[in-house]
């Protein structure tokens, strides 16, 4: 039985050799249970060791292997060959500078992640001896989905606002801010507001919704941002009407 072959069209870019990126085509054997990452690993191991890309867990939890496959941002370890065409175009994530081949520069995202103060700002410090904060299953449910972000950056790749305006804080960072804002142990919403509720924050979002469509973990950052818009507007009016009770 002859082995069926498919083609991978991979974007290559080595700044030491190339003026600009170009595509290189490789023939790869087709396996029904292979994902795109398996095919790229085959290329690196058998055909061309110079292809550079990020990957680790192969189970869609580390977020390393985000790339654009046939125009759609996906996790390479989660996209099966059986759901692709016979000639698969593989490019790095959009809206980030390309360092090398499929590796993008993520610095901007890391800065933005830090800028939203993504940690618990408690009302009062609690001693370890006093045990855990109490949190009912219902309270946990209220923010649980927003904890699922693996920082894979597919949402930034899909977001046209981030493409048009690189100062936009972006879906994942804003969803993470929302996660902490909703956590019953946290009272930091106002501390996050100057970044989150700024013109580069939630108000840059025009609810395209592409981020939520491509998110592999169903975090739904678009929903997080719209909910934050409502909460922020309410805060604004409350601060206006009752300035003595700063939120």
């Amino acid at each position, binding site marked *: 039985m002859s082995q069926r072959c498919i083609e991978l069209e991979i974007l290559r870019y080595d700044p*030491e050799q190339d003026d600009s990126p170009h595509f290189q085509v490789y023939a790869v054997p087709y396996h029904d249970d292979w994902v795109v990452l398996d095919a790229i690993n085959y290329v690196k191991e058998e055909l061309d*060791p*110079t292809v550079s890309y990020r990957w*680790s867990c192969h189970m*869609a939890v*580390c*977020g390393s292997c985000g790339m654009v496959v046939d125009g759609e941002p996906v996790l390479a370890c989660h996209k099966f060959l059986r759901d692709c065409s016979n000639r698969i175009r593989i490019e790095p994530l959009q809206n980030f500078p390309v360092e090398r081949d499929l590796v993008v520069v993520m610095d901007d995202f890391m800065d933005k992640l830090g800028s939203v103060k993504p940690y618990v700002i408690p009302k009062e410090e609690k001693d370890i001896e006093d045990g*855990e904060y109490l949190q009912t*299953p219902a309270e946990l449910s209220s923010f649980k989905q927003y904890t699922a972000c693996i920082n894979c950056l597919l949402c930034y790749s899909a977001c046209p606002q981030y493409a048009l305006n690189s100062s936009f804080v972006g879906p994942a960072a804003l969803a993470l801010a929302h996660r902490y804002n909703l*956590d019953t142990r946290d009272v930091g919403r106002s501390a996050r507001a100057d970044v989150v509720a700024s013109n580069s924050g939630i108000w840059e979002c025009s609810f395209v919704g592409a981020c939520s469509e491509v998110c592999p973990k169903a975090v739904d950052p678009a929903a997080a941002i719209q909910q934050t818009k409502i909460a922020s507007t309410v805060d604004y009016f409350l601060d206006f009407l009752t300035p003595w009770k700063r939120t």
Partner: protein
Amino acid sequence: MLTIDTDVAIVGAGGAGLRAAIAVAESDPSLKIALISKVYPMRSHTVAAEGGAAGVIKDNDSFDEHFHDTVAGGDWLCDQDAVDLFIREAPRELTQVEHWGCPWSRDPDGHVSVRPFGGMKVERTWFAADKSGFHLLHTLFQTSLKHPSITRFDEFFSTDLVVVDGRCHGVAAIEMRSGQVHFFRAKSVIIATGGAGRVFPFTTNGAIKTGDGMAMAFRAGVPLKDMEFVQYHPTGLPGTGILITEGSRGEGGILVNKDGYRYLQDYDLGPPDPWPRKKAMELGPRDRLSQAFWHEQKKGRTISGDNGDVVHLDLRHLGEKKIDERLPMVRELSMSYVGIDPVHDAIPVRPVVHYTMGGIDTDIDSATAVDGLFAAGECACVSINGANRLGSNSLTELLVFGKRAGLGAAEFARRRTDSVIEQQVDLMAELSRERVLDLIRRNDGEERVAGLRKEMNSAMEAGAGIYRSEESLQSCVDTMMQIRERYKNVVLNDRSNVFNTDLFEALELGAMIDVALAMACSALQRRESRGSHQRLDFPERDDTTFLKHTLAQYAAMDVPAVDYRDVTITRLQPAERVYGGAVE
């Protein structure tokens, strides 16, 4: 050569590295911390852990029980003073991360929930659905962002420790995006680089688990302890090796062979009912479950599949609601990667390499024999896990010993007054850089990274698998020595300075070969069976000769030298490991 001066350098930004960094920052905000990792912190393999972290908090539990379970689970190779400290610190550390926001699953009254886990008599495993490692890692990473004294060096590939006269002076690392070698001159260094599962071909471990830090410490003169003890997780998906958490058995899942028979009852883990029952059947310790698979396979009672033999993990009786609430990731992984919905069908599973019990020899304070060098997490061996780790002790270990390493390194950095012998140190750093450049520049050589790596994997699988023998291990050692020699002829295809993954994989291969050699030699010399190290030619446990830790010492031109150190026994004398019906 770019030099960066810092007080504490931490290599590895997973659970242990991050916890150590936070500990240093909290204990003394004036100390400069360089947190160096070859991947962004969120990619560290802590992220893949699923089941949970053990710590005594419920009224029906006690420190004594956790102690007993851990020591017995480790087949008495655990240092009991370390275990005592570990279990006592555990609840505090788990509460600390809860304060930092870790979304532990809850009981209706708002307290943290616990679930049963393998080898534990009382349930004490804190869990965050079935993504405990993910939540723990992200909580620690996000909390670390609070501390301005932590400077991260993301995607810096550490290559060598600089050790002069038994004292550590820092670490050399390649900035991956530019290829520039940097020297981090530090007063103290913590290694938290994780385990080395990628030495084997079938593993739950991600690509990055290549034992880099273990090899660095090994080459710098620190012994690697108990390297022969490699844990096979009983339930990994065939082909990819993706982990299916022990939590699925904690919630009541069962393992059956091709006759639909719960075969574990044939291996001193029964009787099968009542179920679930702690420390029995599918909640036995991991080494015993993996070994049972091996026996079933020999008897021809496993199910053959496209990716080798498997058994079936049946969760159907749990019902959709429970699966979605407690094991949503298991359902997702199973559907995505093997096309099975556990609500309706059994999941095909097999044992895969999962955890390295052995590692960098440290004492109870995470300190190594080299002054100013500390290690914590899977890369280290204190030892609290002994010959076999109990599930959910590892995540807790990251926190307890990560913190201790941080405090120890901070203290050492503060106290350090010696004047650095600049020339010697710089020379060593320069040598490290030359080593890297040599590899890039080499033109004459027949070997390629991928090919040699596959051969190394095959040799380990054949020679040092679940069951070993004198013959298989000697052959493995011989092959590995040849592979080490051939490694000197590895030539790269990629000569770029910019994110050269060919280079990084070559360096990782070098580390794996050193680690594999330590594993094989240690296994060869341990002529007994204990925990996860099983010898067909020496099937019994031999406490008279081998109630000791194996210490492998690096030799550049020879096999590692193997020596022994007594295990610290304080209050639990070695006894028979009993699981199944005989337990209350």
